[in-house]
């Protein structure tokens, strides 16, 4: 199944590197200032799209933005905000904190730390979106 992600990045010299993976497939890419990634993935009925920011550099302060997500050629629109970012805090920095920082951030499409952004998937995608509408309690 095709996954298309529109990324944006901020960096001085160190281009962000992300590993994009599901249960059965993985791709690793460098992210330019503006970049569209397109990859084929073997997606299980219940799966998770993971975007792992692997080379955060504190000096360069490189940042990854996830601007758009299309799975199976369907724009996930605002559902992108259901993605959750699990940062991997620097252990020395963590020890110095008097209050523990959050384990995860949601909504979050801006990866400023090393860590993994996770987005749950149920196929078929069109039905996943219909079920979200169906169960919307507004």
């Amino acid at each position, binding site marked *: 199944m095709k996954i298309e992600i529109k990324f944006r990045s901020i960096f001085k010299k160190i281009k962000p590197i992300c590993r994009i993976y599901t249960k059965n497939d993985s791709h690793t890419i460098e992210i330019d200032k503006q970049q569209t990634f397109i990859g084929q993935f073997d997606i299980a009925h219940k799966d998770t799209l993971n975007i792992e920011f692997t080379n955060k550099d504190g000096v360069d302060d490189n940042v990854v933005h996830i601007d758009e997500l299309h799975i199976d050629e369907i724009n996930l629109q605002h559902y992108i905000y259901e993605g959750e970012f699990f940062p991997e805090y620097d252990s020395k920095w963590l020890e110095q904190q008097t209050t523990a920082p959050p384990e995860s951030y949601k909504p979050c499409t801006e990866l400023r730390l090393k860590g993994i952004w996770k987005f749950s998937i149920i196929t078929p995608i*069109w039905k996943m979106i219909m079920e979200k509408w*169906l169960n*919307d309690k507004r």
Partner: protein
Amino acid sequence: MTKDRMPKLLQDAIEQNSYDVDVITKNLKLPWLKLDLDFGEWTEEHVSFLQSNDDWRKKWKFPDSDKNSYQVKNWNGKLFFGPTDFDKFLKLSGQNEHDHDEDSKCRRYRDQLDYGWYSDNSIKTKINKLIPDSDLNLVNSYILPSGGYVFPHRDYAIDNIGLAKIYVAVRWGEGNVFGQYGCGNIPVKEGDVFLVNNYTLPHWVFNGSDRERIVLDISANLHSDKIKESIFKAFRKGFYER
């Protein structure tokens, strides 16, 4: 206990249970009911009244008012009956009911604001034969040219209603779709009148025919005599007749 030794509650339920418009339209959440309301023939004169060069989304001040945003292609409409001071109505409903659809907003303010026809025309005459002005909340057309669509979405209502929209297929060529998630497509043919629930299920429309699709949408008091009678008939047909 009654004289027959039947508890009174049970006796009343058995003897007095009948059809209830509110239960059928609000509680059951049926996706649609085909009504037998007869508005008569739709001539080219009627059709020309229903067509519009207005921009429906701008008229209602939708946040994304572009009629060709990626979720909507060439979908348009025209107002015939509704709040007479439309700007005041929009201001009020925008402050309080921003999540609700046009029908719901018009139901909400029916007792607070003046409502009426925006012009005197043959559509008014046709509708008033079956529904008096006092039972109308909103009358408008929906226009969808060949190839036009509205993405899957759900509408929201203030009154937890299900079946609400009287949907008259004035022009409906082969290849048109009104899909309701999990229920297939509403089996609409040109000239049909349906009571549609656009609040419970995600739904979408597409005009796959080669001509313009024209729908008359009526939001009305469903207790109005002829409407109520038609709802009961449709219910009996769907759930009682073999």
